[in-house]
Structure formats: structure tokens, C-alpha cells
């Protein structure tokens, strides 16, 4: 049908995510046995976003010999593969996924709650039972309501009530468990949450209705009680689904740690072990492309390393025998042997994970609007109900009238609309953002982003593309570029990669030798060709930054200069201006040198910026802003930004950021530009407005309904109408969000 088949494209066929170049890790330590003797591997797959990805990955795996099951869960990114023992090697399984263009890391299901969502299933079952009960009781209630004027005899009415009771009581006992449990736990801890009035309303409504049924007909509220449970369970389920995305992201951070390493035994052979099994003193081999799993020292060899973990810059640093290595740094050029001097638990990555967790704890202290409303609601409603009871007794009506009116107050104040007010808006808002490629991790992330007044940006990888690009292409002739590419295709050095990107795919010269920190050389058609630093080639040239410049010399010809820089993203200037227009103050914090930082800050339009900052310095700056009373959002991508992202009031991270940053950030946005940040801010502000509108409506509705209940005008029909009406209005108001957000093009 189309000229390019999906198989020719690596990665997502719908181009929703760029293809991955990650190295393949041997997952053998993570292979399990199933009950019927097969081998099973659970992998966490990154980059699968569309239906085409499912058929691509599963198709590639089913093509391997012996594979009996390959199933990808698109919502969670988890891939389960089962195969007959000894027919395929575990590394072939991972390689099949990687060659299709997706990154796959093994993950340990035991380390996580369970790979099936038990809580979600429980809520769905309760929801189903409540829905069944509500629909069938309504069948009977509508008959009773429409025959109020005497068409239905008392015996039939009694029958209807009894059947309703028989449906409602077991259904409420089953479907009300989430609320009863939560209310019980809260009361045990001596404070009230939203579930206390809900449970009270349900239990009392059922109790009164049962009493009415057994005594002398009259009004029963079985349908109201079950309807209340049904609507609230919808809200609960939606909230749970939203939160499970945040949980999945945190688990992906664990997956980052569940890597494998090559350990050298005393006899010199290699074995593959899980990073968690490494002990101090182990000797580990790091091939080019491998990440150091734990802190250690180099005992043999020297190589260039990507230490962006510590500085945020990917300009490689040479390490030789005796130098220390931090866990997470990536080996770029030569094989080295290192000795571990820590376990993975005390490594830098684990420390970052702990910092992230600490940041999340401080965020969980944020009181959501819904909880604020609840803390107001509970005492007010309960006092009103009590006052009604006492009032009617004082007026001289019997205990029966007093109780039924007090209960009517409890039922009519309808925690229904309150239970749906926030989840309905959050679901619509996150759906709208998802369509724009922005992933929202939690419902209160929207509320938090709406309150910020300043935004802090990281430079490399966030404001800029994060990779070097050749800037003086017109000074390099085609033949020189072609020859240089023959050398650079063999190297992982960022400057070499930049040349390869411009030149495209092609051949590699034989016998390319890389000298870490200096350059690469090979013999092309009998002539020596070299590409690397000026000093190494013997060139005496004054330049500002030798890291952003390289020279190529072919034989005795004059050397050609290649200039690189990390370019600002196209819409950065427009985004900063748009944010300023919305009343936010913006600032740039960078770990890079002053020169490049100044250039980017000027080009993007920042008037506040700082350079040469360590991750700790960035966190200090955020703390200073907080003390000055600002509410700060942070945008960052590097592994070293993760603690700042966790500590800021709200945080955003680009989709190609380090996993830890994506795990720590509240919003993850896809694509090459910064415009999603503005969209996220706009939608968050709108969402906050809608949530407040919903709660105001709920308060207004209560203000009208409560007097009716206090004075005894509430019948079951009115209660049911009020309940469904208020829930529908709250949901419709939430849907207003979808139609009103526009995306502008920012230039």
C-alpha cells in the first residue's frame, strides 16, 4: 500500500516516539520458569505507543523459534515472553525487540506489587455490582414513584420495597467496601475523611429504608443509597487509573536499576549477574556502550566516559587506571576492567532514587482542593443533620420524623457531586493533554502547575537539543565530509556522531583506532586520515571552546575545521515569551560553562540565568526562590536534575530525558519543541478553574437542597433526581474543558 513498509522503519511505525539505540543487556539472570517447564521473561519496553508497535514487537518475537507467548501490554509497557527451553537464548529475545527499535529492560515482578492491577480490578467489580443493583432497583422505584396517586396497592408497594431491600443490602455490603474500609481506618486514626459521611449516609439510608419496609410502607431510599455508591465508585476508579500511571513511572526507575553486569570470575571467565548481586571487590568488564552498575575504580584500560550523570554535559572525559567511576556513567570507547567498591544499593543512582522519593514525600503533603472541601464539608453537614434532629424533636414531632428528616439531610447533601468534581475534570484534562503528547502523572499535578508563578529551565537537553550539530557545513566540502564520515561512523563520541548524522548512513573504514580524549585515525586508500582535537593534530589555532571543535586532516592536505554547537530548540524563544505573557517569571540554570550558557540565554530571551551549577546548587536556588515566597516549576532532563524536579512545586521533563527525570517529573512531554509546556500550563489553569466551579456548584446545590431536607420536603424521588442531576452537571462542566483549549504555534 505505501512505499515504505512498517518493517523498514525502526521504532514506532506511527512515529509517535523516536527509535532507540540502546545497547542490549543480557537478561539471563531474570529468566524464570513457568509451571509447565517453559522459560519466561518479563521486560519493560520503552517507546511502544501505537497499535503498529504491538504487531511489530509481537511479530518479531513470534518469529523466533520456540516462542509460545509474546504479549505486550500497551498501557503499562510490560512485555511477557514465554518460550520452550533451549530453543532461544534470552539475549536473542531482547535483541529482537531492540532491533525493532525499542528499548527493553528486564524487570523483576516480585519487586513490584503484582503485574496485574488488583486494586483496579477490585474497584471495577464493586462498580459492576453497584451498577447492577442501581439499575434493577430503579426498575422497581420508578414503578412506585409513578403510582404515587393510588394506582399501586399497598401490597404491591410492599413487594417492591422488599425486593429492593433484597437487592440493595447485599449489593451495598459488597460495593461499599472501599468506602467502609477507608472510613474505618480514618476513624481509627481519629480523623475524618470524605468516606466517613459517605459511609454514614449509605448505612443510615439503608437502615431507615429497611425500617420503613418492615413497618408501614412509606418512603424508602434504597435506590439513592446504591446510586450514591455507583457514582462515587466511578470517581474512585478514574482516580485510581490516573494514579497507576504515576506508579508505573516510579517502577520504571526501579527497572533502570535492574540491569545486568559482566563479572569476571577468578579464572578469567565472564558471567552475567544482576546488578543487585554485585559485592565490593568484584571485577567487572565494561564494554563500550555499557553503563557502570556500581561505584568503583578502573583497574585495567583507559577510555572516554559520558559523565552527564554528574555534570549534565555529555562531553566525554577520559578516565585511566586508578580513576574512580560513578555508577551510571557510560563507557564510550574502549573495554575496561573495573573493581566495584560499593553495592548497587549505595550507588549514585540509588542515592538519586532516594532523593527523588524524599521530594515526592514533600509533594504528597500538598493538600488537594478535594481534601480541603472534604475537611469543610464533614463538620458542616454533620452539625446540620444533628441540628435538624434536635430541632424537630424540640418542635414536638416524634423521634421517627426527626430521624428521617436528619437522614434526608445527610443523603441530599450528596457527596456524589463532590466525589466526581475533581476526578471528572482531571480525566478530561489529562485526556486533552495526552492528545498533545503530554503525559500527566497525577491528578494534583494539574492543580500544582496552575499555582506556579515562576519557571526554572535547565539548559542542555531542555532548552537545547542536547546533542552537537555541525554549524559550518558550508565550510566543509563534500569530499572531506565523506572521508570524515568513514572514520566517525565507528565512534560514539558526540562530535563524531554529529558528523555521522549529517553524512548519513554509509561505510566505515577498516581498522579505525580511537585515542580517548584525542581523536580517531585510519588509513583511507593508502593515506592516513585523522579526525580529532586540534592539539593532537598539531594545529596551533586559537579557539574559544576546544570541545565544540574538531579538525580533519587527510594525508598532507591542509586540515579542515569542523565547528559544532548544541543548538537552541526552534520554539524556545516563542515559548519563553508566551510564558512571560502569562505573567510567569522565567530563569535558566545550567551546569555548563559561562560562554555557551550566555549564548543560549540571550538567544532564548532570558534575563535571569546562572551557569556552572552543580545539581546541589540548582536545588539551593529552588530553595531560595521558595523562601522568597515564589511557587516554582522546574523543567529539566538530565539524571542530575531529578532531585530538583522532585523538589519543585511542579515539574516537567522532555520525553527523551533520562528515566529518573521522567520518573520524577509531573509532566512528560513528547516532541522536539517546548510549546507543550505552555499547553500544559494553560490546561492546568483551566482545570483548576473547572474544579473550583464544580465545588462551588456542589456548595450552591447543597445550599438549596438542605433547607428542603431540614423542613421535610425530600422524598426518594427528589433525592434520586438531585443525586443524578448534580453528578451529570458536574461531568458536563468538566467536559467544557475539552472544547476550549487551543494550541497556538509558537515561533
Amino acid at each position: 500500500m505505501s512505499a515504505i513498509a512498517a518493517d523498514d522503519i525502526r521504532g514506532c511505525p506511527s512515529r509517535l516516539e523516536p527509535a532507540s539505540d540502546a545497547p542490549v543487556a543480557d537478561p539471563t539472570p531474570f529468566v524464570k520458569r513457568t509451571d509447565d517447564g517453559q522459560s519466561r521473561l518479563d521486560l519493560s519496553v520503552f517507546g511502544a505507543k501505537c497499535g503498529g508497535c504491538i504487531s511489530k514487537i509481537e511479530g518479531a518475537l513470534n518469529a523466533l523459534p520456540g516462542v509460545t507467548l509474546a504479549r505486550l501490554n500497551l498501557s503499562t509497557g510490560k512485555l511477557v515472553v514465554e518460550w520452550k527451553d533451549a530453543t532461544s537464548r534470552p539475549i536473542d529475545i531482547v535483541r529482537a525487540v531492540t532491533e525493532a527499535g525499542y528499548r527493553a529492560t528486564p524487570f523483576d515482578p516480585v519487586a513490584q506489587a503484582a503485574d496485574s492491577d488488583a486494586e483496579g480490578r477490585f474497584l471495577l467489580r464493586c462498580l459492576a455490582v453497584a451498577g447492577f443493583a442501581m439499575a434493577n432497583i430503579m426498575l422497581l422505584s420508578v414503578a412506585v414513584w409513578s403510582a404515587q396517586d393510588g394506582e399501586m396497592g399497598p401490597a404491591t408497594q410492599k413487594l417492591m420495597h422488599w425486593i429492593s431491600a433484597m437487592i440493595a443490602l447485599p449489593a451495598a455490603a459488597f460495593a461499599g467496601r472501599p468506602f467502609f474500609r477507608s472510613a474505618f481506618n480514618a476513624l481509627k486514626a481519629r480523623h475524618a475523611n470524605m468516606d466517613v459521611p459517605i459511609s454514614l449516609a449509605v448505612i443510615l439510608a439503608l437502615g431507615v429504608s429497611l425500617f420503613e419496609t418492615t413497618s408501614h410502607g412509606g418512603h424508602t431510599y434504597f435506590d439513592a443509597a446504591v446510586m450514591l455508591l455507583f457514582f462515587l465508585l466511578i470517581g474512585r476508579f478514574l482516580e485510581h487509573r490516573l494514579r497507576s500511571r504515576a506508579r508505573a513511572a516510579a517502577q520504571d526507575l526501579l527497572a533502570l536499576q535492574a540491569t545486568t553486569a559482566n563479572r569476571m570470575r577468578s579464572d578469567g571467565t565472564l558471567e552475567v549477574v544482576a546488578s543487585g548481586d554485585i559485592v565490593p571487590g568484584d571485577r567487572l568488564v565494561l564494554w563500550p556502550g555499557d553503563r557502570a552498575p556500581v561505584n568503583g575504580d578502573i583497574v585495567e584500560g583507559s577510555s572516554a566516559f559520558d559523565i552527564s550523570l554528574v555534570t549534565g554535559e555529555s562531553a566525554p572525559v577520559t578516565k585511566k587506571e586508578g580513576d574512580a567511576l560513578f555508577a551510571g556513567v557510560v563507557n564510550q570507547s574502549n573495554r575496561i576492567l573495573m573493581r566495584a567498591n560499593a553495592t548497587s544499593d549505595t550507588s549514585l543512582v540509588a542515592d538519586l532514587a532516594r532523593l527523588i522519593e524524599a521530594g515526592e514525600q514533600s509533594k504528597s503533603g500538598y493538600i488537594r482542593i478535594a481534601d480541603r472541601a472534604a475537611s469543610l464539608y464533614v463538620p458542616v453537614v454533620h452539625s446540620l443533620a444533628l441540628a435538624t434532629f434536635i430541632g424537630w424533636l424540640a418542635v414536638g414531632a416524634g423521634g421517627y420524623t426527626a430521624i428521617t428528616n436528619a437522614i434526608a439531610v445527610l443523603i441530599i447533601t450528596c457527596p456524589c457531586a463532590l466525589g466526581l468534581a475533581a476526578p471528572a475534570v482531571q480525566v478530561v484534562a489529562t485526556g486533552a493533554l495526552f492528545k498533545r503528547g503530554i503525559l500527566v502523572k497525577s491528578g494534583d499535578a494539574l492543580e500544582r502547575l496552575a499555582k506556579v508563578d515562576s519557571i526554572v529551565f535547565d539548559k542542555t537537553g531542555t532548552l537545547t537539543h542536547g546533542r552537537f550539530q555541525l554549524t559550518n557545513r558550508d565550510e566543509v566540502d563534500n569530499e572531506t565530509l565523506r572521508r570524515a564520515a568513514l572514520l566517525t561512523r565507528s565512534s560514539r563520541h558526540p562530535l563524531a556522531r554529529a558528523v555521522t548524522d549529517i553524512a548519513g548512513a554509509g561505510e566505515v573504514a577498516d581498522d579505525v583506532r580511537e585515542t580517548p580524549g584525542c581523536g580517531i585515525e585510519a588509513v583511507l586508500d593508502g593515506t592516513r586520515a585523522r579526525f580529532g582535537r586540534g592539539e593532537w593534530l598539531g594545529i596551533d589555532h586559537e579557539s574559544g571552546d576546544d570541545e565544540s571543535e574538531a579538525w580533519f586532516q587527510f594525508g598532507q592536505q591542509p586540515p579542515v575545521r569542523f565547528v559544532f554547537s548544541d543548538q537552541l530548540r526552534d520554539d524556545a524563544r516563542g515559548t519563553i515569551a508566551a510564558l512571560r505573557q502569562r505573567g510567569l517569571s522565567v530563569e535558566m540554570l545550567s551546569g555548563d560553562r559561562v560562554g555557551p550558557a550566555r549564548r543560549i540565554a540571550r538567544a532564548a530571551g532570558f534575563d535571569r540565568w546562572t551557569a556552572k551549577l552543580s545539581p546541589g546548587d540548582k536545588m539551593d536556588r529552588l530553595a531560595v526562590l521558595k523562601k522568597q515566597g515564589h511557587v516554582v516549576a522546574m523543567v529539566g532532563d538530565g539524571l542530575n536534575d531529578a532531585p530538583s524536579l522532585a523538589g519543585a512545586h511542579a515539574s516537567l521533563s522532555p520525553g527523551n530525558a533520562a528515566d529518573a527525570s521522567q520518573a520524577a517529573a509531573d509532566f512528560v512531554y513528547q516532541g522536539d519543541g517546548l510549546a507543550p509546556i505552555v499547553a500544559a500550563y494553560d490546561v492546568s489553569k483551566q482545570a483548576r478553574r473547572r474544579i473550583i466551579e464544580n465545588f462551588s456548584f456542589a456548595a450552591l446545590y447543597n445550599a438549596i437542597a438542605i433547607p428542603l431536607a431540614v423542613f421535610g420536603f425530600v422524598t426518594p424521588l427528589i433525592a434520586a433526581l438531585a443525586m443524578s442531576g448534580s453528578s451529570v452537571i458536574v461531568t458536563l462542566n468538566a467536559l467544557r474543558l475539552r472544547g476550549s483549549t487551543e494550541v497556538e504555534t509558537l515561533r
Partner: protein
Amino acid sequence: MTMLIYLIPIALLMGGLGLAAFIWSVRSGQFDDLDGAAYRILTDDDDEKP
């Protein structure tokens, strides 16, 4: 009136069947991957290519 005696239980039974079917589908994991399930119907893997 006598019709109610058997119509109501029939209605409840049919509703109960629906409920049982839903709970079975939740238990067998059909609601675990709603996004993936939406896309799987579009894959062309049942026709043999000529």
C-alpha cells in the same frame, strides 16, 4: 399482578447474568490493557498473504 411474580425474577436473572459475565471478564484480565485492546482489532494477522 401475577405477572410481576415471575417477570421480576426473570429481569433480575438476566441482569445477574450480565453482572457475572462482566466480573468474569475483569477476572480474566480483559480490562488490564484498554489502550492495547483498542488497537489489536486493527492488526491484519488473520489473512494469509498470497
